[in-house]
């Protein structure tokens, strides 16, 4: 025992209280979520700073004698003269499958009261986008379940497709529909034990939105059973501008984890207009020089570096993908404003929603003429390409002719036929919210339209025809639908089967 005591005493005598060097600064000025800190000589750009009391900051501008820091948390608890410590770590958020089904804030902390997040891994919020060598062309489709989008503005996995339109035109609904569609496809593939199907996980980033709107979206996703495949990152309007500015980057980091691990993910940024406004606020408080519409000079880089992180990577690099659906809200349909033009030029196409169409009852209110998808057609299902190839041109022609026909002049038979077909196609593409349609059903319906099976159906009964034809296909001709899904193209045999089914249906259809 005596020896043991001596040993302990010797240990105590030899013990050294080592202290590592820490870089510390002092708050010189604080307000609006931004602090100016003196000291912090060795701090890195985008380094996390510890303000104490569980409050974190991010070094955003390094100046000669001070550091501009954005505070993530309640900055009202901080005061001039308080100490700030550098952590030596870049801002990072938890990533992984543990986040699926959860609602988190910008820092990845849970907001849903379902306990801590089971994630060991963290990714930096700011990360360089995959380079040229790592990328491969977009080749697999994202089935949105919205017939008009899947037929005419197809989106591929790894694409960046902008959803743009005025307020209340159904921008968010398109994205929520897409998320629900993915969840249903994932669940169906899992139930069927289809190992070849690559599930698509969704991340919904809400930036500067009302808490009630976010709660409603969560409710819709829960009701549709989409939450197990979805992460919600909420930075509502009550969050500081700094949190709102970082939210899409944190969401992108969570999506990148799926991409890096050979999985596919879809990220919705709702919306980047509010994000640009939050960044403008942060920049102005940091006293950065302002440019057009008082946005800072690097607002283009802000969105380009964010959206460049969406990619499809090669097989050597995991074969994963991150598809981005950014949303931009326009004012009175003005797409030539600063932020809309920026984001239009960054993305691989846009879906433009019009207020007029919305109030005419054409929902989704997608303006086909100026909506494009620059890379998605390569990813489109061949069967869909076969039936919908001419549709966009036909519809554009119809809009032109319909405007002309308003003058009441007499029309020749060919023009009248085009207008009649166009009216039916427009009616067909009307689709209720949160009710995505399977792609094989879409092919069957569009095939019937293209082959004149609806020409004698009155316009006001088109939806009825569509519902019954869909029901007929799914209940009595399920084998044909299954073949379309398996073969992914319309072979002559399949077309003959479809024709036989359509003829049979037409006999039973009550005129």
């Amino acid at each position, binding site marked *: 025992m005596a020896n043991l005591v001596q040993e302990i005493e010797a240990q105590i005598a030899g013990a050294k209280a080592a*202290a*590592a060097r*820490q*870089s*510390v600064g002092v708050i010189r000025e604080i307000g609006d979520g931004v602090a100016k800190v003196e*000291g*912090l000589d060795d701090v890195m750009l985008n380094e996390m700073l510890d303000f104490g009391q569980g409050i974190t900051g991010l070094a955003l501008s390094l100046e*000669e*004698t001070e550091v501009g820091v954005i505070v993530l948390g309640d900055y009202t608890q901080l005061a001039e003269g308080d100490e700030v410590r550098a952590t030596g770590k870049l801002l990072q958020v938890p990533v992984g499958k543990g986040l699926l089904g959860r609602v988190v804030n910008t820092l990845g902390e849970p907001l849903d009261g379902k306990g801590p997040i089971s994630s060991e891994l963290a990714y930096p919020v700011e990360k360089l986008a995959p380079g040229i060598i790592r990328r491969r062309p977009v080749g697999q489709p994202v089935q949105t379940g919205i017939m008009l989008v899947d037929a005419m503005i197809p989106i591929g996995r790894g694409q960046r497709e902008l959803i743009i339109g005025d307020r209340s035109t159904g921008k968010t609904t398109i994205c929520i529909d897409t998320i629900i569609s993915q969840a249903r496809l994932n669940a169906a593939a899992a139930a069927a034990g289809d190992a070849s199907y690559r599930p698509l996980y969704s991340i919904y980033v809400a930036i500067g939105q009302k808490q009630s709107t976010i709660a409603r979206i969560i409710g819709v996703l829960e009701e549709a059973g989409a939450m197990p495949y979805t992460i919600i990152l909420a930075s509502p309007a009550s969050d500081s501008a700094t949190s709102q500015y970082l939210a899409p980057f944190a969401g992108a980091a969570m999506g990148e984890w799926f991409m890096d691990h050979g999985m596919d993910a879809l990220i919705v940024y709702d919306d980047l207009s509010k994000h640009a406004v939050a960044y403008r606020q942060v920049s102005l408080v940091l006293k950065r020089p302002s440019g057009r519409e008082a946005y800072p000079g690097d607002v283009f880089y802000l969105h380009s570096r964010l959206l460049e992180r969406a990619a499809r990577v090669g097989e050597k690099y995991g074969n994963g993908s991150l598809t981005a659906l950014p949303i931009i809200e326009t004012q009175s349909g003005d797409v030539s404003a600063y932020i809309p033009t920026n984001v239009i030029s960054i993305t691989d196409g846009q879906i433009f929603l019009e207020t007029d169409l919305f109030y005419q009852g054409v929902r989704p209110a997608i303006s086909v003429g100026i909506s494009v998808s620059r890379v998605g057609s390569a990813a489109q299902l061949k069967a869909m390409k076969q039936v919908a190839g001419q549709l966009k041109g036909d519809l554009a022609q119809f809009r032109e002719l319909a405007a002309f026909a308003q003058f009441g002049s007499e029309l020749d038979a060919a023009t009248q036929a085009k207008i009649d077909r166009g009216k039916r196609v427009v009616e067909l593409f009307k689709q209720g919210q949160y009710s995505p349609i399977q792609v094989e059903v879409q092919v069957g319906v569009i095939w019937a339209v293209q082959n004149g099976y609806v020409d004698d159906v009155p316009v006001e009964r088109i939806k009825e025809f569509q519902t019954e034809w869909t029901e007929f296909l799914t209940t009595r001709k399920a084998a044909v639908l299954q073949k379309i899904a398996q073969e992914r193209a319309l072979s002559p045999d399949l077309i003959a089967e479809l024709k036989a089914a359509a003829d049979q249906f037409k006999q039973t259809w009550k005129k």
Partner: protein
Amino acid sequence: MKATRKTRRAARRLFRVCQVDGRPDAERVRLVTQRVAGSGRRGTLAILGDFSRLARLDRDGHRAIVESATPLPDGLRINLLRDLARVYGQGLETSFEVNPRLIGGMRIRVGSDVYDASVRAKLAALEARL
């Protein structure tokens, strides 16, 4: 008058003029302060405010504050001065202060560098970890 980019630039230039061998010369600093204060020009106060801030930051960067819970023995002080000179070079102005709030151990601050081996810091770290 509020500090502007122009006044900050002027203060920086004046501060550079006062440097001799990389450190501000006391005589020059005094002279510049007197001349600027006496010039009666617009923005004088803002320039002097920035100038004094630069002088303060420079002084803090060359000043070591050693805090301990109890007064340090002379031998330890000499060792500390020698070690600090080795790391930060000669010309470091060192002051020793007694701060019972540290409970035990020592805390050294040189500019923005802090070496905190106090019991209080360790307890705070333990609290954060728990």
